[in-house]
């Protein structure tokens, strides 16, 4: 037996075993908030349904609201039933509910932390969570610094500790650096999981597969063949009652600083040597460091006015509840960016993000240079379009390629056609929600799909430069109608360069 103990287990060969997280307790700060209801508990339920959570597991919801464990469980059960992607199964819910507690506390209070520590110790005893902790900070930005400090002061000495920090991480470079400094006092970088849920989306990860697992794309993925790149993150919804947050953040902090810049980084990055957290994040940081916008003329901001979405009249931003009547918060931002490196020098990346646009759509479009000399005398139906490779992030996840084809019949008339790959068409298994993937990765200690401190600081550097431009003028808001594709200046941004936004 002594010999066998020293050997590798030969019975494991060929078994497709899933990695299971260590026993642990998950503490959600902001447990009464929308994110917990709409995303976190439905994600935890889906993970439980698939037996992806450890058997020895516990959840503690923390918020200021006074309520009992049972009240909290009932509220979360309703949330899972309303927002979950899986059919509700009582047995799975019972498993999760049995492991769920609620602590009403305010960390500003003396003894607030002690109530939580007591509940965690109880979980360790009853559920065997072994002192391992994940703290999910689903709280407003103003509360984050205090929580980081308090958690750091009282961190468990028995097991490991991990921190998930929701976006936005700071509101400018200086505040992000302060938060990072606070974190670094009590935590190592590998213990910090700055979440950007876009990175948990299957199709965002598929962008890496598309680029680096296919030999045909990388040779032409550069300034020699690509005319420009367009990235759109469009929402048709408004601010959904989040005026307090949105008035402070605006589109640039809500979407541009994180989701949009992540998409630029993934599109422009060099191939990592492997898919480990450090390799992928090193390459993304290089892109962010090399990025600049050429000046105020190349950044457009907008704010929606009254308009129509799907035939229904919707109010303008300034008429939303909680928004100042003279608010200068932007709900739209478009910019021309450059990545100053050998691959992309002089190739513009046009990006735009906004609320109350004509439809919900996130796409990355790589527009290639036109054929240098098409040898066809008869013209195309309209002007022949350049080849465009479009990565559809949402909705209708997939990839499509636009190219020219001959119209059947006499002569040689050309028309642009689409070749589509639909992600959900080829892979019929349910696509996991981004939060499922990211929570599980955190429980497993994998930081690949989370934002590193230097990455977030580079993002803020660019945002700070843009916000500095904005201090010099005061645009006439609102400057676009709800249900359109943003202000006219955004079209002008492209038109000046002899280009236009893709037709939708």
């Amino acid at each position, binding site marked *: *037996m002594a010999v066998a103990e020293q050997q590798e287990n030969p019975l494991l*060969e060929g*078994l497709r075993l899933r990695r299971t997280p260590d026993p642990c307790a998950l503490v959600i700060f902001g447990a009464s908030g929308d994110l917990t209801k709409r995303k976190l508990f439905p994600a935890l339920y889906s993970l439980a349904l698939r037996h992806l959570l450890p058997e020895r597991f516990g959840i503690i919801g923390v918020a200021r609201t006074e309520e009992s464990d049972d009240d909290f469980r009932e509220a979360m059960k309703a949330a899972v039933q309303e927002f979950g992607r899986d059919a509700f199964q009582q047995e799975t819910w019972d498993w999760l509910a049995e492991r769920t507690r609620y602590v009403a506390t305010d960390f500003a209070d003396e003894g607030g932390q002690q109530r939580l520590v007591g509940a965690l110790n109880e979980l360790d005893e009853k559920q065997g969570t072994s002192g391992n902790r994940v703290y999910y900070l689903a709280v407003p930005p103003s509360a984050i610094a205090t929580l980081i400090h308090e958690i750091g002061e009282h961190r468990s000495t028995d097991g490991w500790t991990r921190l998930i920090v929701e976006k936005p991480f700071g509101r400018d470079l200086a505040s992000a650096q302060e938060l990072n400094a606070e974190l670094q006092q009590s935590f190592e970088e590998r213990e910090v999981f700055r979440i950007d849920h876009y990175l948990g989306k299957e199709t965002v990860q598929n962008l890496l597969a598309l680029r680096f697992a296919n030999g045909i794309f990388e040779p032409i993925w550069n300034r020699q063949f690509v005319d420009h790149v367009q990235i759109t993150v469009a929402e048709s919804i408004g601010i959904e009652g989040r005026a307090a947050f949105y008035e402070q953040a605006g589109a640039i902090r809500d979407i541009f600083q994180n989701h949009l810049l992540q998409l630029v980084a993934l599109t422009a990055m060099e191939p990592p040597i492997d898919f480990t957290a450090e390799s992928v994040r090193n390459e993304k940081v290089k892109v962010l460091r090399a990025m600049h916008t050429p000046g105020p003329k190349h950044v457009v901001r907008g704010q929606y006015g009254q308009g129509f979405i799907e035939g229904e009249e919707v109010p303008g931003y300034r008429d939303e509840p909680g928004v100042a009547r003279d608010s200068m918060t932007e709900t739209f931002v478009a910019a021309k960016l450059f990545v100053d490196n050998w691959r992309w020098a002089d190739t513009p990346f046009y990006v735009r993000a906004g609320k109350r646009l004509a439809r919900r759509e996130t796409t990355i479009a790589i527009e290639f240079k036109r054929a240098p000399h098409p040898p066809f005398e008869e013209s195309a139906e309209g002007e022949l379009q350049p080849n465009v490779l479009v990565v559809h992030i949402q909705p*209708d996840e997939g990839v499509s390629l636009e190219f020219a084809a001959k119209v059947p019949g006499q002569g040689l008339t050309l028309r642009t056609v689409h070749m589509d790959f639909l992600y*959900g*068409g080829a892979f019929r298994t349910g696509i996991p929600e981004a939060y499922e993937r990211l929570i599980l990765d955190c429980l497993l200690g994998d930081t690949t799909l989370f934002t590193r401190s230097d990455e977030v600081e580079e993002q803020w550097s660019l945002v700070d430069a843009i916000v500095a431009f904005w201090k010099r003028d005061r645009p006439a808001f609102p400057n676009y109608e709800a249900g359109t594709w943003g202000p006219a200046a955004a079209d002008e941004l492209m038109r000046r360069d002899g280009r236009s936004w893709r037709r939708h």
Partner: protein
Amino acid sequence: MAAALGSIAEIERELGAQRVDPESGQPMQRTSVMTHLAWVPEQWVEAAEDVLSGLAERHPSRTIVLVPDPDAEDALEASVEVDCYPVGEHRKVSMETIRLKLCGKRVQAPASVVEPLLLPDLPVFLRWRGLPPFGEQPFEQLVDTVDRLIVDSTEWPGLPAPYGRLADIFDRVAVSDIAWARTSRWRAQLASLWPGIAGVRRIKVLGTEAQAHLLAGWLRSRLGRKIELEHEAADRLTGVELDGEPTPFPPGDPPDPADLLSDELERFTRDRVYEDAVSATRM
């Protein structure tokens, strides 16, 4: 009911016609990740259709169901079906099923019927219901046409002898066995008993004959020595004893037949551990 199609050209024409969306008049998008052949003798038709219906949505493919009828008059009788599934918010994709009855002498030349219907550049899987007629034309032809053969040795009489014939084709085609897939939970459970399991001398399996032989073959091949097998018949794997000691029941629920086949359709390489286990079933 429409008349049976009698040639490849008629099948292709009908597929083209059915691919047009009746609402828009435009061709529906076809999505395929493989060609899936199923050799289904008449007695397996019902069971095969059940599994296929659970599979279609998960593995968009062109499915070709081959039903041999050697006693009928020489003919090819085919029907096609294009099913449409919603994808995302605005789109639908179509998938195709071709049912081919090979009558009379056509049974002897299935490859010539199937070849023109394979989707180019995509892997071809063959699900063979029942015991394959090793060495005979239909089977040998199709084995050389496909990338992966999927069998369920639970359906085979006279075990373990047929495993010897199966091992002979391992160098020609990758093989999956649903019976083997059904043991995976138990293999993981037994692996968790390492190193205590290293010295085991006897295994008793309460399950199908195939599962008993494959589990014993697996332990012999992995541990590299002779292990006695005792088998108690049951229609599914319900227990394993090692040297007279029952092993704990593995966690989770057993997968259903469509899930098992679905998992095998995601594998593209040879399963060397399975091949070693098959080779060791007769030790």
